[in-house]
């Protein structure tokens, strides 16, 4: 049996700056903000101050994890960074973080632009490199700071999203723990529904793409800002995720009764509740982590796992189904067995102060 990767440590990091309900009501009006909050369940978000980037959040999360666990930098032989909000178009943020973290020249580096489903995709990539003998100790960094690409007057996106990063340490499984299976898919007919139109070669940025557009519901944006057709994406997730979760469970040969926890990408509370309901996931196997931080995009699903660890909700030997979905439109699910020694929380703050 080829070597398998197992999650042996996880830690997340969010900016200290809070974007509160009161602040948004001043900007957008109470009625609109309350209407969205009622559905989303999000009351506060953490966003980066000018000058702080997604890479800074990832660096802090990684530093705290490596220091907290006493992991020698030279022992990391694989770094995978997933982000849609990198420091540069070229090179990938993984290279920047490889240098900042002082990792070894022998460490392989991957940079993935995978959106909200990034975590299971990154884990699967790492698992493949464990299986081929390339990697024995991997660092996975999922980080996004969408606040920088959302127009400040786009009330739908501003109210839903926060910034954050998660560092996950993978090491070779010793027993029956580890990443036990993956299930992926794509409905590319919906790629336009989560998109920045003027962000690459297809539509170069011009004076025209900087023009502000106000849609019929009052959201303001330009072609250079992140855009979401919320009703299409919401509809996709509510129908598709339960369907593919059932496929995944059948593929893995387990049922909801076998699971200790079902972790979902935290797009909004109503959506998560609908998916849990369709899958008959009982309350003790549910976990929500968005009310105080918002939707962290590609960092969302690992942040849920990290917070569940911090809250003592992940017991030694726990079996966890994790499902993430979004940009593409894509989905990824993985079945995770925690080791018999459990996952101890990293004894470090999850906040990154603005002057860091």
């Amino acid at each position: 049996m080829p070597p398998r990767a197992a999650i042996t440590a996880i830690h997340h990091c969010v900016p200290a700056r809070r974007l509160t309900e009161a602040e948004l009501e001043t900007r957008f009006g109470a009625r609109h903000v309350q209407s969205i909050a009622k559905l989303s369940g999000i009351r506060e978000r953490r966003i980066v101050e000018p000058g702080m980037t997604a890479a800074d959040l990832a660096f802090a999360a990684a530093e705290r994890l490596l220091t907290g666990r006493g992991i020698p930098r030279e022992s990391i032989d694989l770094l995978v960074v997933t982000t849609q909000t990198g420091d540069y178009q070229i090179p990938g943020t993984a290279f920047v973080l490889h240098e900042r973290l002082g990792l070894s020249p022998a460490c392989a580096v991957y940079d993935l632009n995978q959106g909200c489903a990034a975590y299971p995709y990154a884990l699967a990539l790492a698992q493949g490199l464990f299986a081929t003998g390339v990697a024995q100790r991997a660092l996975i960094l999922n980080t996004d700071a969408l606040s920088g690409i959302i127009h400040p007057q786009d009330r739908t996106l501003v109210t839903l999203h926060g910034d954050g990063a998660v560092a996950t340490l993978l090491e070779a499984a010793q027993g029956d723990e580890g990443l036990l299976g993956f299930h992926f898919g794509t409905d590319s007919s919906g790629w336009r529904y989560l998109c920045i139109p003027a962000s690459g070669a297809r539509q170069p940025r011009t004076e025209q793409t900087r023009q502000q557009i106000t849609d019929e519901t009052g959201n303001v944006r330009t072609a250079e800002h992140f855009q979401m057709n919320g009703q299409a994406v919401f509809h996709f997730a509510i129908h598709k995720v339960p369907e593919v979760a059932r496929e995944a469970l059948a593929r893995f040969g387990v049922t909801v009764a076998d699971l200790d926890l079902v972790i979902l990408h935290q797009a909004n509370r109503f959506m998560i509740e609908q998916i849990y309901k369709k899958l008959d996931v009982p309350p003790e196997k549910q976990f929500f982590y968005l009310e105080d931080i918002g939707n962290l995009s590609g960092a969302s699903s690992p942040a849920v796992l990290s917070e569940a660890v911090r809250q003592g909700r992940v017991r030694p030997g726990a079996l966890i189904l994790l499902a993430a979905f979004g940009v593409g439109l894509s989905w990824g699910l993985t079945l995770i067995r925690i080791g018999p020694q459990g996952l101890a929380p990293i004894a470090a703050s999850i906040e990154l102060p603005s002057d860091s």
Partner: protein
Amino acid sequence: MAMTRNEQLLKVQEIFRDVLDQPGLCITEKFSTADCPEWDSVATVQIVLATEAAFEVRIPMETVAGLRQVSELLDLLP
């Protein structure tokens, strides 16, 4: 027996009244997002889900993406 279009409209009207929290609301086929500020993307999702449940249909994602008027919903009902 299949419902008439007018019967469907009345059933959809109940959904709109419930989602938009406007018990006295009367809609026509031409009722659109432009007629009602409360009919935003959040309301659209709730209207679509309630309509799918009431009529046991699945509304295609591309229709949901562009849904702005009641007639677009009625056109998809059995």
